[in-house]
Structure formats: structure tokens, C-alpha cells
């Protein structure tokens, strides 16, 4: 159980940090698309009976992130259509492959647990927890060190580029980090619900707080609290972990929404 809480808190922290940037850059759909790609990759990895599925999922998702970001910037290709195509395609192929070639007796159970998160978060191995901790440290470190650059690229990419900064490089790093977070978070809430972890805390924070730094910190704290509550409730009431966390994120969003309306009236 302690493993689940550690992993849950770390994932919630990382996804909310990146979430602020992704939401503000109007990239929140990329998180959704990537999680479906990760599902497709997971399906293929399962069929090939890879011992460590992350070996395949991680590079595939990173490549997809880079491709999606490129099309998002290119105005000639419709970015949203490209994302929709890729995500639905990956979802369909993933399910097809699992259904046709999987040797598992319980295919629909496998699919359901990859889509909506498994209870396996409560039975994580020490190695998986360790990997999650290392990845989270990398993400948080990256975010802190490049905080000012991330702000500049998020607020005004053209201006930042005009002062001679390599914004493509920062965008690329953001895409790669997003992919890493999504792959890690898939264990917790499943691939369909990953984007909820990214989007909800950021949106809640944006309702309440007026400064960028404040939004980032508020989103991180809120996300961690929601994840903690969600895990504890799911253990006590034996509800699915992922869905419980997301439900609490939704409740938190509405509380913040109502609060922001009340506070503004004064």
C-alpha cells in the first residue's frame, strides 16, 4: 500500500506540473492522443510477451509525442485531426491485436485494466517503484531548472524565438517529458483517464490563482491531495483506483469553480 501511495503522489505531482503548460499552450489534446498511442504499444508489447513492456511503450510514445507536436505547429496539417486520427487508430489496432493474438484467457479483463487502470498499482514491485521515483525526480528537476524558459515558451513562443532562444528545443523537451509522464501514469489511472490527471488540477488552479508560479504550485498541491484521497478511498471502499482519483479531481474542479465565482463577487 505504501508503494501505491508513493507512486500515486509522484505521478500526480509530475502530471500537474506539465499540465499547466500543456493546457495553456492548448496542447491538452496531445496528452489524450499520447495515452491512446501508449495503449496500442502496450497491446503489442503484451502480444510479443515482452518481459518489460516499458522498453517498447516508452520509445513509441516519445516518437508519437514528437510527431504530434510537429503537426501541431504546422498550420497546413490540421493538428487536431492528426491527433484524433493517431489516437483512435492506436486504440483500434491495440484492441484488435490483443483480441486476435493474445494468449490470455481474459482478454476483455486485460483491455479494461489497461484502459481504466489496474488494481496492480496496489501490488507494485520494488523495481517499478524505484523507476517511478527516478523518473519523477528527473521531471521535477527539469521543470525547476527550466521554469523560466517554460514560462516564456508557454506565454509567447514567437517573442521568445525572436530573442534568439531555441524554442523548438524546449518544445521537444516538453513533448518528451509529457510522453514519459503518460507512460508512467498509465499504470495508475489507465490510458483513458491519464489526461484527466494532466488537465483537471491545472484548470482548477487557473480558476483560483492569478500568477503563473501560483498556478503551478497550487495545481501540484491540489493534484497530490486528490491522488492521496483517491487511493485511500479506493482501498477503503474497494473502488477502481484510477476512476476514483479522477472523480475526486472532478469534484475538486467544481469546488474551485464555485469558490472562484464567490470570491470574484466580493
Amino acid at each position, binding site marked *: 500500500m505504501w508503494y501505491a501511495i508513493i507512486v500515486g503522489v509522484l505521478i500526480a505531482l509530475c502530471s500537474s506540473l506539465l499540465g499547466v503548460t500543456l493546457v*495553456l499552450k492548448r496542447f491538452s489534446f496531445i496528452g489524450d492522443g499520447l495515452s491512446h498511442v501508449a495503449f496500442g504499444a502496450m497491446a503489442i508489447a503484451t502480444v510479443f510477451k515482452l518481459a518489460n513492456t516499458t522498453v517498447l511503450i516508452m520509445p513509441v510514445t516519445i516518437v508519437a509525442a514528437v510527431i504530434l507536436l510537429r503537426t501541431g505547429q504546422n498550420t497546413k496539417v490540421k493538428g487536431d485531426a492528426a491527433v484524433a486520427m493517431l489516437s483512435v487508430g492506436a486504440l483500434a489496432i491495440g484492441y484488435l491485436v490483443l483480441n486476435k493474438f493474445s494468449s490470455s484467457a481474459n482478454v476483455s479483463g486485460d483491455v479494461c485494466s489497461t484502459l481504466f487502470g489496474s488494481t496492480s498499482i496496489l501490488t507494485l514491485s520494488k523495481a517499478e517503484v524505484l523507476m517511478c521515483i527516478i523518473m519523477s525526480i528527473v521531471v521535477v528537476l527539469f521543470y525547476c531548472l527550466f521554469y523560466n524558459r517554460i514560462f516564456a515558451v508557454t506565454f509567447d513562443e514567437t*517573442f521568445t524565438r525572436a530573442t534568439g532562444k531555441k524554442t523548438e528545443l524546449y518544445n521537444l523537451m516538453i513533448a518528451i517529458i509529457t510522453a514519459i509522464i503518460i507512460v508512467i501514469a498509465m499504470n495508475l489511472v489507465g490510458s483513458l483517464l491519464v489526461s484527466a490527471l494532466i488537465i483537471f488540477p491545472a484548470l482548477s488552479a487557473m480558476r483560483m490563482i492569478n500568477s503563473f508560479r501560483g498556478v503551478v504550485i497550487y495545481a501540484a498541491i491540489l493534484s497530490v491531495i486528490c491522488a492521496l484521497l483517491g487511493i485511500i478511498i479506493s482501498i477503503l471502499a474497494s473502488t477502481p483506483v484510477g476512476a476514483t482519483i479522477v472523480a475526486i479531481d472532478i469534484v475538486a474542479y467544481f469546488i474551485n469553480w464555485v469558490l472562484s465565482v464567490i470570491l470574484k463577487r466580493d
Partner: protein
Amino acid sequence: MRLQSINANELHFSMEVVMSYITCENLELGYEGIPIVSNLSFKVDKGDYLCIVGENGAGKSTLVKNLLQLLKPMVGTIAMGDGLKPYEIGYLPQQTVVQRDFPATAWEIVLSGTLSKCGKRCFYGREEKKLANEMMEKLNITDLKKSSYRNLSGGQQQRILLARALCAAQKVLLLDEPVTGLDPKATAEFYELIGSLNKEGISIIMVSHDLQVISYATHILHVEKDNSFYGTKQEYLNSDKGRRFLSESREA
């Protein structure tokens, strides 16, 4: 008579040797191999106030991107001189949708203009913060420091973006349609502010189709497909192109 004309030529020649901030010669600009505007030559000197006018789609935005080095000219050169380094043009972009509801304080935004001075450092130092403070004071927005950008008026937002641009560069300012969406009073104030910066010696390049701005300009660049006009304001007002443009714009 003859002697005089030789002197005039020599004078012209020596002016050429002293480099301008920006010298553009025979530019042909466009996207992905398709030219939009060609045969474009002009320069910007210290203290100039260049107003770039032209119809929509004539290539004004493309020219802006080239000046900022976000695009490369297809033909011709853009040379920087007189101590102006590349990427030392302070840029005031058109507002994007993303920015309108962006949760950030004025201070965070102005400070982000100094990022180019940080080099490889990750965080802002004392000097960057001092510069940001000075620029906010200069533009009279120090009291907005902790206000949220999305709650401010259009005129206040433009001042914040202007302070950010001044943090990045103090020699040349490039403004892209800066008064779009401002009310007449805010527009007049904004032009007054830019005019006073220009009097301090900052060169201004202003893209606009607002005729008010021409009264502040020293030079006009009228962008047209392959027959652009560049000259002083007086030359422009006396030219056919200038007269036609002004009368058409007044009617519209």
C-alpha cells in the same frame, strides 16, 4: 552646378559607409519557395520612426518575421550594423488567443523579457530584476506589478508587453499592429508613449494600417508585391502611391 552634384554624390556615399541599424537590400520574401513580396529595399537608422503600411496580405507580417530572423529571406540580405546585434530587436507581437486568459502577473511577463540576457543561466539574477523594475517604472506600470495580466485593460496589457520588449532590447522596437482592439483614448496614449520613446533615441518600426501613426513617422515603407515604396514621410505624402493610399483609407 556640376561641382555641387558631385559633392552630393560623395555625401551620399559617405552616408552609406556608416552602417545603419538595419539595411535591407533587394529582398524577396515568402513561404516555402513561393514569393509574396519582392524588390524590397529600405533601412532603419538610429532614431528613425519607420511606419510599414500596405494592404492585408501584402507581406507585412512576412517582413516582420524576416526582420526577427524567424524566417530567412529567399533573395537579398538583411544586414545589422551600427552596434545592433541579431536578435536585438524588441518585439511587440499581436496578441494571441492564448494570452488573453493567461494566468500570470505583470511582473512575471516583464521579467521574461530579460531571459535572453541570462545566457545559459537558469534563473534571473539581480541585474535582470533591476532592468525589469526600471522598465516598468519608465512605462509607469509599477503599480500593476502584482496584477494579473488577464484582468487588465487592453492598453495596460500593451504597456506590459512593451516593457517586456524593452527588457529584451533597447535600440530598436518592432511593433506589429499594436493598437488593434484598443479604444481611441488608449490608442492615442499608446502612440504618445511610443513617440516619447522615439524621442529618447529608440528606433521604432511600426506595422499599422492606422493613419494616425503617420503623423509620428519619419519614414514610410509601403509594402506592395514588387513595387514597394520607401522614403521619408514627406516624399510619401507627395507621391501618387501615398496620396492614393491615404484617400482610400480615409474612405474606408
